[in-house]
């Protein structure tokens, strides 16, 4: 499943943030999304995940192939680690959560309430959710926030395994994950302010 984006322009709060963005994400590849704060990386991921419509441009590649991980992990503090993961597995129609628990070393924590986990442990659980979705295209928004070195390695290994199985990933991050993915710097695609035309100028 190849994701192809052609001449995409996106808005945040009605203001254009990125424009003229084109790239392809073939199976087995990772794309590292870079750019300064506020450039619209999160907005881009949300648009690709189908949470908001693009201003212009085309996104080819089925929306229902995308698994999206936002800044927040979508965990319920009063449910245990296993219950949280099993819920998402059931929503996505998969059954087996054991590989996800193994990949992020959550076995020891499986009976703990998510509310009692540390920030890094919660993040690991949030990332483990990606494995139970069973979807080929991963969209990750700052996945390594509050992870320690070990856990970053775990995450990089999980992404590598995912790519090895023919999946793909678009990762917005500021750190080097040691993945051999291409870097997509969206800095040059910053939307230019619309020039003031005669009509608007008349008000000034």
């Amino acid at each position, binding site marked *: 499943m190849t994701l192809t984006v052609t001449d995409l322009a996106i808005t945040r709060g009605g203001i254009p943030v990125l424009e003229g963005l084109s790239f392809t994400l073939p199976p087995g590849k990772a794309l590292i999304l870079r750019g300064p704060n506020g450039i619209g990386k999160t907005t881009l991921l*949300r648009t690709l*995940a*189908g*949470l*908001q*419509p693009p201003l212009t441009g085309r996104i080819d590649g089925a929306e*229902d192939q*995308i*698994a*999206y*991980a*936002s*800044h*927040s*992990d*979508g*965990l*319920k*503090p*009063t*449910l245990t680690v296993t*219950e949280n993961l*099993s*819920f*998402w597995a*059931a*929503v*996505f*129609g998969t059954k087996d959560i054991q590989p996800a628990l193994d990949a992020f070393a959550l076995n020891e924590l499986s009976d703990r309430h998510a509310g009692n986990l540390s920030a890094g442990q919660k993040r690991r659980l949030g990332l483990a*959710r990606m494995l139970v979705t069973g979807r080929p295209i991963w969209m990750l928004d700052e996945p390594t926030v509050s992870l320690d070195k070990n856990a970053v390695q775990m995450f990089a290994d999980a992404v590598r395994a995912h790519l090895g199985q023919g999946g793909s990933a678009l990762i917005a991050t500021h750190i080097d994950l040691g993945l051999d993915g291409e870097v997509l710097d969206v800095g040059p695609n910053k939307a230019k302010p619309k020039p003031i035309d005669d009509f608007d100028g008349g008000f000034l």
Partner: protein
Amino acid sequence: MIALLLRDLKLAFRAGGGFGLGLAFFLIVTVLVPFSVGPQSSLLSTIAPGVLWLGALLACLLSLDRLLALDWEDGSLDLLATAPLPLEAVVTIKALAHWLTTGLPLVLAAPFLGVLLNLPAPGFAWLVISLLIGTPAMSVIGTFGAALTVGLKRGGLLLSLLVLPLYVPTLIFGAEVARRGATGMETQTPLLMLAGITAATVALLPFASAAVLRINLR
């Protein structure tokens, strides 16, 4: 879908889930009314159907602002919107879970609280029937209001103001069924109106809720 329903029910019964909030409010209202209006049993039995219906409605309203807000805050609403479930199904299940944890307990508690207000004997069955038919509409309308205000800080106030007028037809016909039932009059007309309102809201409002939710998540 079953998984979402089970999760919501589980969450409601766990610590801090808010199950019992509506029930406690309903109890407080019906216990306090006799103190405030005085102990004349004839007056109490006249107003009992209306007070019980109003109490149930306000108890229902009380729990609405958590209906979608919690899922929005922890990000699971975004994730549900990108999941294979259609949003229409998500809001329907959410409304169903709300009814099972708030509406149904109110229906079951109403006859016991009716005793406190000296509800006439023939009124008990009609009170339960009217609440049983009317409360699903309150959950579905409430979910629509919650979808409209999700993401707003302190949206609960706006939610109440938006939802209250939509509750009025259900309240009028529901309380009318209970009142007529209690005084031995025929109840068919308001009962049919009440059932019609519930059927229409359950059939149509989930689509509206899903549509406004999509816009709100942008």
